[in-house]
């Protein structure tokens, strides 16, 4: 019994090391200007704030990822994006899985308060995220997604809630 107890203690103690490394890296990233890979970063502070007419968003189709920060809470993450009919879209997959729902908090937060700041090529754009769950444009958007990324996002996945899709509209 004592050997079993000691074995469990040793395993738990050894597990503490990677858990500590991950927690430390996550906390460190929260104090950074923007995200890195998977952990949320702090507010997007560097970069010119875009002012002017709605840009031609087609340039994002040549950019693999963008940085996106919500206003509440002011945390940022790296995210895929796509342009369709000169509208900008972001989305979150895995929303139908338990791990996905624990991992991806921003879609839930964005649904409550959609104010967002997006940084692309060092320029920050103020946007408003609006969730899209259905509509005729879904087919074109998901086609644009699968053409750009190795993704299996379909209209059905968006409609079923497995993928949460947002249009990043201009902020009023």
């Amino acid at each position: 019994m004592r050997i079993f107890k000691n074995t469990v203690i040793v395993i738990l103690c050894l597990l503490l090391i990677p858990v500590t490394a991950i927690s430390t890296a996550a906390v460190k990233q929260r104090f950074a200007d923007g995200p890195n890979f998977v952990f949320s970063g702090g507010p997007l502070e560097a970069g010119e704030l875009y002012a002017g007419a709605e840009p031609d968003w087609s340039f994002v189709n040549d950019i693999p990822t963008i940085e996106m920060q919500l206003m509440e809470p002011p945390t940022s993450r790296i995210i895929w994006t796509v342009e369709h009919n000169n509208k900008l879209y972001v989305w979150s997959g895995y929303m139908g899985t338990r791990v996905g729902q624990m991992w991806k908090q921003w879609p839930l937060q964005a649904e409550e308060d959609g104010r967002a700041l997006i940084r692309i090529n060092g320029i920050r754009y103020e946007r408003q995220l609006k969730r899209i769950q259905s509509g005729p444009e879904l087919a074109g958007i998901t086609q644009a997604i699968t053409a750009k990324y190795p993704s299996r996002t379909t209209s059905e996945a968006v409609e079923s809630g497995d993928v949460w899709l947002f249009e990043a509209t201009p902020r009023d």
Partner: protein
Amino acid sequence: MKKFYVGVAIALVLTILAVLFVPGVDDFVEQTFQRYLGRAAR
């Protein structure tokens, strides 16, 4: 066991210091975590 606990405590402190101050360690930790997380979410 006491020596083991001391060793674990030292390892934890070294881990925190390495992630905070050694260049590239935080990236390695994050990328490794991302790999496992992505696999678990599928």
